[in-house]
């Protein structure tokens, strides 16, 4: 009884972790399956077939490349615009600043389906052909809010005297920005960029409405789920998961090492 009382937090934590990680484990396990028929829903036997030929499914790797490109460009666009907006909102007092501050949150709060439908209406009315560019514009738009939020938090906690000190120490405006402002805002910008990439990469609803005939990876998965799910989807999913975990772990190791060398 006392043992249980002592460890209740640990047990609850482990259960929550299991709850979050179990779906990923299932995806991973089934990437080694050799399904009987078109659907990869029941375990048959172990096989490396899918891992040996990840692009063996028609059009899947094309859609994956497209999604990665979209995510990369959406991240660049959202980070550049979002960082500038965040600085403007924190540093300057101008008319409608309050209104912009709350408007920025709108894409986060609005139901995606509504936003997708209204964007489609907008594009159709303007006579813009649906495709890569409409999807990119849509992605930059909804990623922007997340970047602004992440960068704003960082800029707000930044001491404006640091930039004054830089100017006082012979750094012109450009040098001040490159040597002091940007490095200090970098963690916020990086967090915003990671969020933007992830959000853009797996967005389905808005993309589906505005993609026209282009097919992104989430759309491909959705489409194939109607007809049968190739094991390769699990392979890609597992690879993405492992990659993400590796990036996080590497980041942790680097910060830990930096802390250690600094104290030594």
């Amino acid at each position, binding site marked *: 009884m006392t043992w249980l009382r002592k460890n209740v937090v640990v047990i609850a934590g482990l259960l929550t972790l299991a709850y979050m990680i179990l779906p990923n484990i299932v995806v991973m396990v089934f990437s080694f399956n050799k399904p009987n028929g078109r659907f990869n829903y029941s375990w048959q036997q172990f096989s490396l077939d899918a891992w040996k030929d990840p692009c063996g499914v028609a059009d899947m790797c094309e859609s994956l490349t497209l999604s990665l490109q979209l995510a990369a460009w959406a991240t660049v666009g959202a980070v550049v615009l979002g960082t500038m907006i965040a600085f403007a909102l924190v540093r300057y007092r101008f008319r409608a600043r309050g209104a912009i501050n709350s408007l920025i949150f709108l894409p986060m709060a609005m139901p995606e389906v509504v936003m997708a439908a209204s964007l489609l209406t907008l594009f159709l009315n303007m006579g813009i052909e649906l495709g890569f560019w409409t999807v990119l514009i849509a992605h930059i738009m909804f990623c922007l809010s997340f970047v602004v939020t992440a960068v704003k938090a960082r800029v707000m906690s930044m001491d404006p005297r640091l930039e004054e*000190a*830089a*100017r*006082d*120490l*012979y*750094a012109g405006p450009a*040098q001040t920005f490159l040597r*002091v402002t940007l490095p200090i805002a970098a963690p916020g910008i990086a967090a915003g960029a990671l969020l933007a990439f992830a959000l853009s990469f797996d967005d389905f609803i808005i993309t589906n409405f505005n993609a026209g005939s282009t097919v992104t990876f989430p759309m491909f998965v959705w489409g194939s789920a109607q007809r049968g799910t190739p094991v390769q989807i699990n392979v890609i999913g597992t690879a993405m998961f492992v990659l993400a975990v590796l990036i996080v772990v590497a980041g942790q190791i680097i910060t830990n090492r930096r802390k250690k060398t*600094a104290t030594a």
Partner: protein
Amino acid sequence: MTENTTGGDVRLTGISKTYGSFTAVHPLDLTVPQGSFFALLGASGCGKTTTLRMIAGLEDPSTGTIFLGDRDVTDLPPYKRPVNTVFQSYALFPHMDISENIAFGLRRRGIKSVKKQVDDMLELVQLGDKARHKPHQLSGGQQQRVAVARALINHPQVLLLDEPLGALDLKLRRQMQLELKRIQTEVGITFVHVTHDQEEAMTMADQVAVMNGGRVEQLGAPADLYENPRTTFVANFLGTSNLIEAEVVETGSGSADVVVTAGGGKLRLPGDRCTDAVRQGGKLLVGVRPEKISLAHADDAGSIADGRNRVTGRIVDSSFIGVSTQYVVNSPAGAELQVYEQNVERDARLRPGAEVVLHWNPAHTFGLDAAQDIDAGVETVEDAA
């Protein structure tokens, strides 16, 4: 960059700063002699920091001109002025280690080999073993010294210090005061030091400008300001003063004594220690510092030497603080007069309730214009501390 020629003074002429309808600094003229340790002293919001920031170029003056030596720098941006600042919060770059922080100014001016100079600076501020540390790993006092080193390595014509000791505890502050003074003597650069701590200003500076409400109230050497305050603000802000409202009965001419009455008694003071012309029947504020006053029990009143100013009263409070005892005395001339007595030969009869005579040398008395607020600058000292 430190040229040992005369004319390296900092000269402010008609400098002022207004924000909308609020005037932070009224037009002021100020000359900081080259190589001196100059303090701008005042309570928060008196315009001292704004003045400093205008010299640094971080604030554009609304009117006036700033000269460094013969050069007009009013329109130069901060990164083109041969002036460096030590900020109140130190403003060390958190993403750089100590030696990179110190090298920052040199690198921005395109100097490649900085190691020797950085090492010398670390030596000067006694932080040689901390070169690879990040700012957050250092204590407040160490960060403060890095901030000084980062500014001094550039050999500025003037070093500006904005309340650099404000964030340190009392003991460390005393230590750093001596340290800064040592560094200033060693490098011989003009220091302009902004502070609200009158003790700090007096111990460190050669010259002190006392500021109040965006104006310079009085400028001078610390001892001169202390002995000859010209306004009630300076009298109260710099140390403590007993100010007594009095009426002039005899105007002295030249150095002859002015005689006034206060609370029924007569007091004398040198005519040349009055800030304004005295008129017969006019009002005057008579001031005397608490440590100049001696205290005698009323029974001993007869043994007080002739020619001394006397005020009778009753002790209402006394507090023993080691080297001295501070008495508060109520008298017909004024309430709550402060008296500091050295604890040499303590008179056991001097207890709250005792009738006493306060006496002092008339030469230690000063006279101020009675039209001023008698309490100006009193509470601000406590607020700021």
